[in-house]
C-alpha cells in the first residue's frame, strides 16, 4: 500500500456516548502512524473536514434507535468496503437497549415535555441486525490496543487477532487472584469476553460484563454460583441488564424476572 493511495477511514456515530470513537484519539502515540497509513475521511470528533466516500474501512459506533438511523446505516454500508462495529452499542444495542424490555412510549412521556416531537423506534438494536458487518469489536468502551489491531489487520488484509476467551484468562495471565473464589465476590468474568485486561478484578471488584458474552458462555451454571454467593434473583437479573443487555446469551441469562415498570437497573 503506497502513500499515494492511502485507504480511506470513515468513523460514524449512531446512538452512543462517543466514548468508543474517542478511543482512537486516546491512541496518542500511535495516532500519527495511523494518520500516516490511512486517510481519515470522516471523523467529526477530531475534525470538521469531511471527505466523501467510498470508504475502505468504516468504523461504526452506536446502535440503531430511530427510523432515520435505520436508513443512514444502509447508506454507510453501501459506501464502505469493510464495515467494523466498535463498542457495545454498535455490537449489542448498548445500555439503551433496556428499552427493548420496556415501553418506550411511556419512557418518552416521562422524560420529554413534548413527547410528540420524539421520533424513535421501540428497540435499540445492533448494527449487525441491519446490515452485514465484517467484524465486531467489543467493549464499553473498546480497548485501544484492540482497535489498533483491527485497523492494522484491515490494512494488512488479515483477520484481526481478537481473542474470544473469558476474562478469567486475563486475570490468570496477569496473576490477579480470583475475586469470586477467594473473596466470594459476584463476578461475570467467566461468561464475559476478554479484552479489557481484567480491569475490575485487578481492583478487587467483580467483572460487569462490559465486553459481552465470551465464545461459550454458560450463564445458567454461573447463575447457580451467583445465587449461592448471596445475590437474589432480581440482582442476578440486573447484573446482566447493563451495556450488553441485548446480547442474546446475556438477554437469556437475565431470565424471566422482569424489571418493574419504570425501574431501571
Amino acid at each position, binding site marked *: 500500500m503506497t502513500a499515494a493511495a492511502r485507504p480511506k477511514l470513515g468513523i460514524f456515530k449512531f446512538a452512543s456516548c462517543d466514548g468508543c470513537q474517542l478511543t482512537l484519539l486516546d491512541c496518542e502515540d500511535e495516532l500519527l502512524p495511523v494518520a500516516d497509513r490511512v486517510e481519515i475521511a470522516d471523523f467529526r470528533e477530531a475534525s470538521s473536514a469531511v471527505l466523501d466516500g467510498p470508504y475502505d474501512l468504516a468504523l461504526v459506533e452506536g446502535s440503531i434507535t430511530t427510523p432515520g438511523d435505520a436508513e443512514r446505516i444502509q447508506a454507510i454500508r453501501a459506501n464502505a468496503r469493510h464495515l467494523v462495529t466498535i463498542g457495545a452499542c454498535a455490537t449489542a444495542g448498548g445500555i439503551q437497549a433496556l428499552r427493548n424490555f420496556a415501553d418506550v412510549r411511556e419512557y418518552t412521556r416521562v422524560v420529554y415535555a413534548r413527547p410528540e416531537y420524539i421520533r424513535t423506534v421501540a428497540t435499540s438494536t445492533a448494527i449487525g441486525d441491519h446490515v452485514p458487518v465484517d467484524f465486531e469489536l467489543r467493549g464499553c468502551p473498546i480497548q485501544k490496543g484492540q482497535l489498533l489491531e483491527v485497523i492494522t489487520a484491515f490494512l494488512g488484509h488479515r483477520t484481526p487477532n481478537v481473542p474470544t476467551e473469558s476474562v478469567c484468562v486475563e486475570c*490468570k495471565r496477569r496473576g490477579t487472584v480470583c475475586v469470586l473464589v477467594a473473596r466470594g465476590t459476584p463476578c461475570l468474568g467467566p461468561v464475559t469476553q476478554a479484552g479489557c485486561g481484567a480491569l475490575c478484578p485487578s481492583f478487587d471488584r467483580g467483572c460487569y460484563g462490559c465486553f459481552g458474552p465470551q465464545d*461459550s458462555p454458560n450463564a445458567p*451454571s*454461573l447463575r447457580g454460583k451467583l445465587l449461592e454467593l448471596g445475590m437474589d434473583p432480581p440482582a442476578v437479573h440486573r447484573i446482566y441488564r447493563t451495556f450488553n443487555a441485548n446480547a442474546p446469551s446475556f438477554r437469556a441469562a437475565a431470565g424471566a424476572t422482569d424489571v418493574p415498570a419504570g425501574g431501571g437497573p
Partner: protein
Amino acid sequence: MTATPPTAIAPSGELLSVGSRHTLERSDFPRFLAALGTAGYRVVGPIVRDGAIVYGEIHQESDLPIGWTDRQEAGTYRLERRNDDALFGYAVGPQSWKKYLFPSRERLWTAHRTDGSFRVDAEPTDGPAFVFLGVRACELAAIAIQDRVFRSGGDPGYAARRARTLRVAVQCGVAGGTCFCASMGTGPAVGGDHDLALTELLGEGRHRFLVEVGSPAGASVLHSVPLRPASAPDLGAAGAVVARTSASMGRSMDLHQIRDLLVETPEHPRWASVAERCLSCANCTMACPTCFCHSTEEVPDLTGEHVERWRRWDSCFHSAFTELHGSPVRKSTPSRYRQWMTHKLATWYDQFDRSGCVGCGRCITWCPVGIDLTEEVAAIRAMPGVRTAAGGTGG
C-alpha cells in the same frame, strides 16, 4: 552460575554433602534468606496478596505468610490465621512456578524488513537467577513435567530460566481440602529433584527446620548458614509431619486402570453432565501447574516493517484453540472438557509416560463452580459399563 566448591562446609564444620540433613533454628532463618541473596539469587516465594498466598519477591522474612494458612474447598479459598507463627503453614495457592519458567506472555523473536529481505532477531535468554522458596513436592513433579515438555522440546528461553533456578522445597505441613498428591504418588514427601528441602518443625516449643541438601548448588548456598547435625528426634519429627499431612489429604484419586477407563468412555453421559456445570472459562488450565498449552501470534506494527512473535498461555477450553481450517474441531463444551481430562489423566501416559496430574487440587479450588476431577473420575468409574467397543477419545 554459582561455583560449587568440592566439599561444602557449614560454619559448624559440618560437611554439606548431598543427602546430608541438618537443623536450622527459626531464629537463624533470616541468615538463610540472606545467604540466598549473597549467592546472587533473586528469591521468589509465598507472599500474601489480594486475599491469597501467591508467589512474589521475598526481600525479608516478614514478606513470608507468617502465621497464615488457607482453607480450600471446591470453588472456594479463604485465608485464615493459624494459632502459631509457621512460615510455610499453608497448602498451595492459585499460582504456580510456571509463571516464572513459562511466563503467561513472552516475546519469542522480532523480525524487521530489510532491503528486499528480512532479519530475525532471537529474544535474549538472559535474566535473573531465581530461588524458588517453598516449592512443594507436587510442584517439583509439575516442574519435572514442564521440563519434559519445554526443555526436552528445545525451548531456549525455558531451558535458560530453568538452568538458573535453585529450588528450595518445603515438605507440606498441612494438606489442603482439595489436595490429593498422596494418591497421585507425587507427595507430600519431597523425593529428590530439589536443591534443598526444608521441613518446618513446630513441636516441643521449638520452631526449627530440618534442611536436606539435594544438590551441590544447594549445598553451596549454606556456607554461611548456622546449621547443626540433625538429631534423631528432629528426623523423626520431620517424618511425622509428612505422615500426618499424607493422612489428611482432602481428596483422593483412584488411579486403577485410569488410562483405559477414560480412553474407553468417550460417550459416557457424565461428559454432558459436567459440561452443564463447566463455564468453559479455562480457570482450571490456567491454574494447573502442568498445563502447557499456548498460542503463538505475530504482532505487526502499523508500518508493516516490524513484527514480533509472542507466545501466550492458551487453553483447550477455548473453541478458537481447536480451530483447524477455519473451524473448531471441538465445538462443544463436553468435547473440550473430555479432551482436557482425558489428556491430563489418560493419554498423557502415552505421550509422556506418566499422568499429567500431580494432585495439587488447584483446578478444583479455582473452578468458580467447583468442578472436581476426582469426583468426575469416580462418577465415570461407578458406571464403567458405558464404554464403546472401538475405544479412542473421539472428536
